[in-house]
């Protein structure tokens, strides 16, 4: 592995996005706009909005980074650039970590902008403070990136990659405890939620919202999410093959 090549890959992915300002704009503007809409959807139930909004700050970066990463890596596979790179003296980890660095950075910017809007304009308060909220959001972004890198290997076209969103992310979204407390759901759904990463990402946000100190549950949630990130990155690296089998 080479730090120079990893950073060059991160810079290259960033440059690709910077050449597409509309994507950057959508990435940073859509989450605060959605939160603002939600504020007015719940205009008579301020308490409900105040509890949901921080959790959404974890959901947005994960879902958006998942989508963008899966399409970006799919394009690498279909355009032949990955084919070419795999004949060069680079390690697969240079490639994977390059992507992870850029999308985590984007996740950080996205979460910061959304956080500023949420805390200052929409009046949401979290007991754990804004820094912890942003840390949890960036971890959620890296989770989306890692899952996108891994799952893109199973998509043959961009249409399929987009379908992974309702197939893989939506079930987690419905069962993670964002809409209904997990204890009130049918038992099989609770089992499902217990092994899915978004559950722990949302739980981490809940902890940050409800407690002013660092709790052991928060540590557990962050470790679980970080473990999912590492495993997904390793699996993503395995799906990139130096040599294709006949």
């Amino acid at each position, binding site marked *: 592995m080479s730090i120079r*090549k990893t950073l*060059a890959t991160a810079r290259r992915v960033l440059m690709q996005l910077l050449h597409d300002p509309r994507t950057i704009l959508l990435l940073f503007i859509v989450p605060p706009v959605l939160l603002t809409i939600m504020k007015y959807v719940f205009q008579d139930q301020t308490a409900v909005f105040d509890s949901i909004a921080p959790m959404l700050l974890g959901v947005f970066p994960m879902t958006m980074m998942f989508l963008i990463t899966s399409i970006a890596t799919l394009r690498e596979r279909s*355009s032949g650039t990955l*084919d070419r790179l795999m*004949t060069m*003296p680079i390690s697969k980890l240079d490639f994977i970590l390059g992507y992870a660095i850029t999308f985590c950075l984007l996740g950080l910017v996205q979460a910061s902008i959304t956080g500023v809007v949420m805390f200052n304009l929409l009046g949401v308060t979290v007991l754990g403070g804004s820094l912890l909220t942003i840390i949890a959001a960036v971890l959620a972004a890296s989770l989306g990136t890692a899952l996108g890198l891994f799952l893109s290997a199973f998509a043959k076209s961009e249409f399929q990659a987009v379908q992974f969103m309702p197939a893989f992310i939506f079930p987690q979204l419905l069962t993670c405890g964002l809409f209904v407390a997990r204890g009130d759901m049918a038992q099989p759904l609770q089992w499902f939620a217990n092994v899915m990463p978004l559950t722990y990402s949302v739980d981490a946000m809940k902890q940050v919202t409800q407690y002013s100190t660092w709790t052991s549950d928060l540590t557990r949630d962050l470790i679980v999410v970080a473990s999912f990130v590492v495993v997904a990155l390793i699996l993503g690296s395995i799906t990139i093959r*130096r040599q294709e089998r*006949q």
Partner: protein
Amino acid sequence: METAVKVNNLSVTLGKGFKALKNVSIELPVGKMIGVIGPSGAGKTTLIRSIVGRLHISSGDITIFGQSAGSPALRKRISYMTQELSVYSDLTVRENLNYFATMTGQPRNQANEIINNVLEAVEMKDKAGSLVSRLSTGQKQRVSLAIALIGSPKLMVLDEPTVGLDPVLRDRLWKLFARLANQGITLIITSHSMDEAERCDDLVLIRDGEVIAHSSPKDLLKRTGTKTIEASFLKLVGDKE
């Protein structure tokens, strides 16, 4: 003559039992332009993907400069231009070259000079700041070729490098290939165009996954008693059937 690539009894079966290559055995010399010529679907790309180490070889073997195809040590010595453009269309020409220069391990302080040289070689210096997506197909093809020229590869494997180019540029590129071969670089160039075959030093004619001839263009014409490579190819195919 020193051997660059030695393919020994290579057979490749792709999905659904399709035999893309059947017992191919060839030896390719160092410092020559070797044309792998044949119609579409003949097995040219499968052969060169096996040579650059992108296909796992389960039957037969390939050695390049004495090392097994796909060995990590060969990655610095081989450059590969795929049939797809394999460039980042949302980056400029220079950004693409910069990135691939880093990936091939070029020293940071020499990268600019290397990039300027390859841009000059493919006559794209004036387009260095242009986004690849805004270039014509022929220009994109030249960017892809420029990437393959970065560094000092000992073996260049070029899959249909002149397809889509105008005759003047094609002529210039073949002259560039000849200069590279004179410098001791081995070039394996696939083409389905028989009129380009005569420019090569060595020809591998391939059809239905089998090598039907391997010799210099001159020897091939003499052996088949024909005046063009296309006529030679047709005669060899006719004799076989």
